[in-house]
C-alpha cells in the first residue's frame, strides 16, 4: 500500500502542477458561466438548463481530461524512461499502475469538484436547486469518468499508441451510449445467433446510459440504483485494470 500511495502522491502532484490541468479547470468554469448565460433562452426552464449544461460541462471536461491523461499516463513515462527508475525500486508493477491511475483520477476529481462547487453555488444563489441529489449526479459523472479512464488505460497498453488509444476510447464512449439502440436492434432481430452477437457486442462497452443519473433520478429508487451503479463501475473498472496490469507485467523497457 505504501508504494501505491507514493506513486499516487507524485502522480497527483504532477497533474495538479501541469498547465493543462489548470487550463482545463478554468475552461470548465468558463463553460459553466456560458451555460448560465445561455440559459436565459430557456425561459421557464432556466434552472433545468443551468443544471443540465453545468453537469454536461463537468462531464465533458472530466472525460476529456481523464482520457487524455490516462492514454499518456504510462506511455509517456515509458517514452521519457521515468518508469525505469520507479520499476528498479521494490515496486510491483500493478502497484505502480494503480498508483498512477488513482492519482490521475484524484487530479481529475479535484478539478471536477471545483467545477461542481461553483455550479452548485450558482444553482443555490439563483434558487435553482435541483429536484434530486446534486451530489449523486456529480458522483455518477465521476463514475463514468473513472470507467472511461480505466478503459483508456487498458487501450493505451494494448495498442501502445496514444492516437490509436484515444480514437478507440472515443469509439467505446460512443458505443457505451449506443447500447440502448443495440439492445433495441437485438430485440427485433429474428435470428437467435445474430441477437446473441449484437448483445455480446453491446456488453463489450460499459452501458453509460445506465450510469446517467438523470435517468435514475426519475426512476424513484436512487439509493438502490446508486448501489448497483457503484458495483457496476467497480466491477467493470476492476476488469479493465486487471487486464491492464497483465499487459503491463509483460512489458519490457
Amino acid at each position, binding site marked *: 500500500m505504501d508504494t501505491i500511495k507514493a506513486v499516487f502522491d507524485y502522480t497527483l502532484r504532477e497533474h495538479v502542477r501541469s498547465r493543462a490541468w489548470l487550463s482545463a479547470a478554468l475552461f470548465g468554469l468558463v463553460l459553466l458561466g456560458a451555460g448560465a448565460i445561455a440559459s436565459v433562452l430557456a425561459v421557464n426552464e432556466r434552472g433545468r438548463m443551468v443544471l443540465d449544461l453545468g453537469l454536461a460541462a463537468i462531464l465533458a471536461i472530466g*472525460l476529456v481530461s481523464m482520457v487524455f491523461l490516462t492514454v499518456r499516463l504510462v506511455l509517456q513515462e515509458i517514452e521519457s524512461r521515468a518508469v525505469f527508475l520507479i520499476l528498479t525500486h521494490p515496486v510491483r508493477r500493478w502497484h505502480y499502475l494503480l498508483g498512477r491511475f488513482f492519482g490521475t483520477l484524484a487530479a481529475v476529481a479535484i478539478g471536477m469538484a471545483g467545477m461542481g462547487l461553483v455550479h452548485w453555488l450558482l444553482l443555490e444563489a439563483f434558487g435553482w436547486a435541483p429536484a434530486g441529489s446534486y451530489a449523486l449526479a456529480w458522483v455518477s459523472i465521476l463514475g463514468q469518468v473513472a470507467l472511461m479512464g480505466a478503459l483508456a488505460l487498458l487501450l493505451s497498453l494494448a495498442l501502445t499508441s496514444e492516437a490509436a488509444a484515444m480514437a478507440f476510447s472515443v469509439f467505446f464512449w460512443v458505443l457505451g451510449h449506443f447500447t440502448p439502440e443495440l439492445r433495441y436492434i437485438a430485440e427485433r432481430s429474428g435470428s437467435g445467433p445474430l441477437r446473441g452477437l449484437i448483445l455480446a457486442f453491446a456488453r463489450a462497452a*460499459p452501458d453509460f446510459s*445506465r450510469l446517467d443519473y438523470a435517468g*435514475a433520478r426519475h426512476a424513484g429508487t436512487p439509493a438502490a440504483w446508486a448501489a448497483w451503479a457503484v458495483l457496476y463501475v467497480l466491477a467493470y473498472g476492476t476488469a479493465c485494470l486487471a487486464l491492464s496490469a497483465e499487459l503491463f507485467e509483460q512489458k519490457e523497457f
Partner: protein
Amino acid sequence: MPAARALAVFALSAVVAVAVDGPLGRLSRRFPPLTELPATPFCAQDAALVELGFRAAAADLAWVQMLEYMGNGLPQLPDAPGHPYAHIAVLASRIVSLDPSFHRAYLYGASVLGWFPQVARPEQAVALLQEGLRRDPGQRLYLLYIAALAYKKEGDVPKMIALLDSTLKDPGTPTLMKEILANLYKSQGRYAKALEIWRDILDDPAAASDHPRARLQIEEIRALEAAGRGS
C-alpha cells in the same frame, strides 16, 4: 501480479459486471431509442449529442429551439402560409423523446395544440399528454389538462376554466398556460382574475421574457375595466 491472478481477477470482475447489468438495467430509466426520435431537420444534432452522452443537454437545446420556433420561427421548419405553429407537435415530441421526464414540454406543447385558436388540434394535444402519462407517470397536470380539453370539446368552458385555474399554483404550469387562461378570463370579461394572473407573471423572475407582454396586457385590461365602468 502473476498472470494467473490478474486473469482470475479479470474473469471474476467481468462476471460481476455482467451479473450487475441486469438489476442496474431494471432500476435505470430506459430512454427511448434514437429510432423513436421524430423526423426533424435536427436529427443529426440530437443523435450526436445523445451518443456523446449529453442527452439532457440535447433535450434542453430542443426546448430552446421550440421556444425559438414559437417566437420567431425556425428557418429549418418554415410554416405554410395560414398554418402557423404547424410543427409544434413534432417539436414537443422531439423533446420528450430525448428526455421523457421533460414534463413542461408535454404541457407547453399541449397548451399550444389545445388552446391556440390558430392551431386548434386538441386531439394531438391529448395524444401528447397521454404520452406524458405513459413515459413520465406521477404528473397530475397531464390528467388535469386532458380533462380540461375534454370540457373544451364538450363546450363546457366554465368547467374547463375552473380546472385550468386549479393548476395555476402548480410550479410545473408553463407561463404559456397562465397566459392562455388570463386571455380566457379577459375574453369573458373577468378582468380581475385576468389581472391577477398577469401580475403573477410579472412577479415571476423566471418569466422575464413575458414581462413586456404582461405589462401591455395589464394596461389594456385596466383600460377595458375603466371603459366598462364608464359605460
